[in-house]
């Protein structure tokens, strides 16, 4: 026992604080597991290179939808019920910046400290590969809402993890189909894609799809500048010199914006047909600096392509988003919306099965497996990865600036059924492309 009275006081005070903290902790757990609230940890880029293009618009869309759901009766059936099966939705946003190691720690914090009911997140493919083993270890129901790498469920199998957006293979399969169906002259094609998995895979998928659908087309220069390079003058010269009929690119965010700003004045878009596999998200920023006649994908029937094919659900969300943020929703909020609506569908399905109680992680996983639901981006079906990986319809269009409204529009939009541009369950996307798309349902 210390003879110092201050030390004794500090010791008692410390013990008291620990006790109080423990009680608050217990109270906190009780509150977070309350039956009337469903807590979601929403992980997306709120800073860094992918924030402006993907993370921030997605979170903006997510907030908007969660507010609508909590209010209840705003969206058409089956999304007219309040919250998730009557439970208010409480979302905790977490910044995805910082790399996979940091995200694994953040994931553990969300599950173990914040006691969230679901983690819904991840734009980066690296994070999407790092999180699932931890989610299964913690038995934590988790939704990957955005990332594109097919490897998550083609190379792994997870009980508690689901991806509610199609993987990236369909983007480039659809582009190749668009070239063929629109009769675009492609004797030669070149590419500029970032030098990491996303860019390399996109180019490989496009080359394989073209060799199947347009076997006479020859692949030329393939450029792989570093991600966030910013300077593309030399690459643009190489593409101009190549004089390829088509230039393919999966650049995104600031890199895509810089490429368009630098390539536009140099006439690349007049010399070659340029096709951006996931380019819709830079249209709000670039406006009419995105040249007319550019072929654009949106990683699903998202953005302008969704508006052209709109349902009541799409229109409500579209108008609310435009009103709130002063710009139209691009692909990122659409993927967030389909993730949240899929989660709502799974929660309510699980509650129907368990008599209306808040579902456990196991009940959520059972409900989500093989689920189908309607989203603003079309019907989402959890078909691949034994019911853990979504397929969805896709759309490709061509840009045209509307001088009357001073807005970018998409013309010549072609829509592709989910089963037309996604492989069947059990076949890897790359093998499916190489085999000539066996079993594709395109009518």
């Amino acid at each position, binding site marked *: 026992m210390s003879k110092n009275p201050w030390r004794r006081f500090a010791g008692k005070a410390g013990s008291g604080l620990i006790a109080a903290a423990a009680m608050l902790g217990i109270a906190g757990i009780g509150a977070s597991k309350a039956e009337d609230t469903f807590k979601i940890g929403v992980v997306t880029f*709120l*800073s*860094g*290179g992918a*924030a*402006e293009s993907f993370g*921030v618009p997605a979170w903006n869309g997510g907030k908007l939808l969660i507010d609508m759901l909590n209010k209840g009766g705003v969206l058409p059936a089956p999304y007219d019920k309040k919250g998730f099966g009557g439970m208010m939705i409480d979302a905790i946003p977490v910044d995805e910046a910082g790399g996979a190691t940091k995200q694994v720690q953040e994931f553990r914090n969300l599950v173990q400290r914040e006691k969230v009911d679901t983690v819904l997140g991840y734009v980066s493919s690296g994070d999407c590969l790092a999180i699932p083993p931890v989610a299964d270890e913690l038995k934590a129901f988790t939704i990957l809402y955005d990332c594109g790498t097919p490897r998550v469920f083609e190379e792994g199998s997870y009980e508690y993890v689901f991806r509610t957006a199609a993987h990236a293979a369909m983007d480039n399969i659809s582009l190749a189909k668009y070239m063929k169906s629109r009769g675009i002259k492609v004797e030669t094609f070149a590419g500029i894609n970032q*030098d990491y998995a996303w860019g390399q895979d996109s180019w490989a998928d496009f080359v394989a799809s073209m060799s199947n659908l347009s076997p006479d087309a020859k692949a030329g*220069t*393939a*450029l*792989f*500048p*570093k991600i*966030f*390079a*910013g*300077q593309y*003058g*030399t*690459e643009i*010269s*190489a593409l*101009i*010199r190549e004089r390829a009929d088509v230039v393919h690119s999966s650049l995104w*965010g*600031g890199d895509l*914006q*810089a490429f368009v*700003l*630098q390539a536009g*004045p*140099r*006439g690349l878009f007049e010399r070659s047909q340029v096709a951006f596999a996931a380019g819709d998200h830079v249209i709000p*920023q*670039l406006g009419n*600096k995105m040249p007319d006649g550019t072929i654009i994908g949106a990683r699903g029937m998202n953005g302008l392509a969704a508006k052209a094919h709109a349902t009541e659900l799409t229109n409500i969300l579209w108008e609310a988003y435009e009103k709130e943020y002063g710009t139209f929703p691009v692909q990122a909020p659409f993927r967030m919306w389909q993730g949240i609506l899929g989660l709502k569908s799974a929660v309510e399905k699980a509650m129907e099965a368990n008599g209306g109680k808040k579902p456990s992680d196991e009940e959520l996983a059972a409900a989500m497996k093989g689920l189908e639901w309607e989203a603003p981006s079309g019907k989402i079906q959890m078909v691949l990865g034994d019911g853990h990986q979504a397929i969805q319809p896709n759309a490709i269009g061509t840009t045209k600036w509307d001088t009357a409204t001073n807005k970018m529009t998409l013309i010549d939009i072609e829509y592709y059924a989910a089963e037309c541009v996604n492989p069947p369950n059990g076949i890897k996307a790359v093998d499916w492309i190489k085999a000539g798309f066996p079993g594709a349902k395109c009518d």
Partner: protein
Amino acid sequence: MELLAYILVDGLIYGAWLFIVSVGLTLVFGVLNILNLAHGSLYAIGAYAAASAVGAYFALGGDAFPLGSYVAMIGGAAIVALVLGPLLERGLLRHFYDRDHVIIVLVTYGVFLILEDVMKLIWGVTPLFVSEPYSLLGNVELGPLYYVAYDFLVIAVAILVGLVVWFTLNRTRRGKVVLAVIHDREMSQTMGVNVDRVFMVSFVAGVFLAALGGALTAPMISVSPGIGVNVIIIAFAVVIIGGLGSIEGAAIGAVFVGIARAASVHLLPEAELFIIYLVMAGVLVFRPEGLFQKTQARKI
């Protein structure tokens, strides 16, 4: 022939840009003996300041005289230098001049991290676009080659910057005072040179050159958080090739790297990322101190 012309022009354009972003780094090292890792952030702040200045210029009716946007860009870079230069040098770095090199590198790395967040606090994460100055000068056709005239403006600015820095250092009295400080700080001090002022002015000049690099780049890109990270890496490669502290070295190193990279993109695109470091490794094998730095006897 056409290919050679492409490689040469592309290499010179990229080399000119590289020189502008790296000359400030080598100047600060040469005079202050500081390896400034915050150089990339200063470049990024220059880009943001220029974007804001150009945006304000056009918002205030600059459409009537769009060429004035170039003055706004340079003005933005100058403001960055005049505010951040003295603040960082007098407020922070001077307290570490007597410390080990590693400590100063860590301090400037800390400044880099702080400035990255300061940029987000001031400008947010939404990118800024000021592409008007990029297309103002029209295009240039050189036979089959087709370029934006702004690219040649960057070359002209790089040549001007190189000449001004060289002339100031070698042909003016103040420049010779700076050279004296570089040669022997203590001796200069005993001869009555105000070394503190030389340090501050040189650091402000280094900050201005970093910010100018960012300002000139702003119209070509979307100015967003993180754009300075890659720049510091490539700028280091250039000044190491040229010899740390050598202005001529930075110029030759930038042109070397620019042409090597252009040749790689046109002839062997797979090696694009690797080629810069191959050039650096090749130079260091034969000249470990870089192309233009003289071997110096160590003082004991």
